């Protein structure tokens, strides 16, 4: 890998994670309450624990916040898909 490409890779990854952290903190302490009623009563250590995941998956969560989802999605299995 060339130094230029490696530098771009590091900067882009760092930028993504920095944006993610900027989203994850308010998400964990406020926004998550809108997406999942079970999370609304979550403890403070739980909120701290979801920050790393929210930092990594922030585009998915941001999409759900903007869509104003109020419940987690329902899973799809063979038996649920038939209905």
């Amino acid at each position, binding site marked *: 890998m060339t130094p230029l490409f*490696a530098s771009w890779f590091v900067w882009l990854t760092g930028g993504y994670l920095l944006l993610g952290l900027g989203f994850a903190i308010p998400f964990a302490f406020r926004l998550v309450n809108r997406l999942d009623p079970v999370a609304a009563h979550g*403890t403070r250590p739980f909120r701290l624990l979801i920050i*790393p995941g929210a*930092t*990594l*998956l922030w585009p998915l969560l941001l999409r759900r916040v903007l869509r104003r989802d109020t419940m987690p999605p329902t899973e799809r*299995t063979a*038996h649920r898909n038939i209905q």
Partner: protein
Amino acid sequence: MSAFYRAVNWNRQKYIFDGLLAATVLGYLGLFISLSLGQDSNATLETALIRGLGSGALVLLTVILAVGPLARLDRRFVPLLYNRRHLGVAMFLLALGHASFAVIQFHALGDVNPVVSLLTGGADFHDPATFPFEWLGLAGLVILALMAATSHDFWLATLTAPVWKGLHMLVYPAYVVLVGHVALGSLQQPGPPLPTLLLIASAALVLGLQLFAGWRERGLDRQQASVAAEGWIAVCDASEIREGRARMALVSGERIAVFRYEGRISCVSNVCQHQNGPLGEGKIVDGCITCPWHGYQYLPDSGQSPPPFTEKIPTFNVRVIEGRVYVDPRPNLPGTRVEPALINPGGPRRSA
């Protein structure tokens, strides 16, 4: 189960498990570092620590991958399965420690960004002696980070169990690249090839266990349930099901679990809503179907978790005719109550 999220749903068993895990990891690190420094006069504390953390992470990862098939082959391993997430997070922390110390030791002393230095080190992909094995380690660490960061039940609900499981199946490619990372790193160091041989043996053990358990499971799904009148499926004789336990069968593309309890028969989808655990391998506890993986519970007649919990699984209409259990292959909506079939319609109900 919990009506609201906590960081960890601690109980006595988890305290004991985590205490034993921490003691084992610290004991392993102490022993590894002592032996490394004692046997190799050129070894430094930093190098021994880096190797100890890395090898400890790989040993734990091997155990984690062996636990699943072992629990399927022998139920005595189920408690390890119950706490596998704690093993996973401990393994990630060891791997992170290994990577952090390695980057500091080998890439942070110059004027180039350490990660850029790691990525731009002399790379020759055609020669095992100079192959950049660090790249494999980095790829494995990224996958482990994603898995550790999404290990909480909140992520199961947010991503849904099938997607979450798909994400966590990345542990297999992670294992492959990490075995490559350690094997190449070991081969590029002077000394006997013992670590590489041990590594190959442990990888073969994991592969063998996975294949054997998969082969056993496939046998279950191949057992054909016969189709009776009106498309209902004859699963088994009621007498073949032990009290408080289930018989599984493949129906409509997924397994069902037919439970016998208190003289009655109920049928639900075999897939737990939590982590898609096999409900049919669980048992009735306090009147509820109890998942063997993490103890999630469902009422057998409705597939609903008892209040205040909200999980629901599909149910199936069921009949018992002359002692034989018949199931309608069309699943009901999750949480739909179905009248249990009586094993002896004229006889008294038996309490568990």
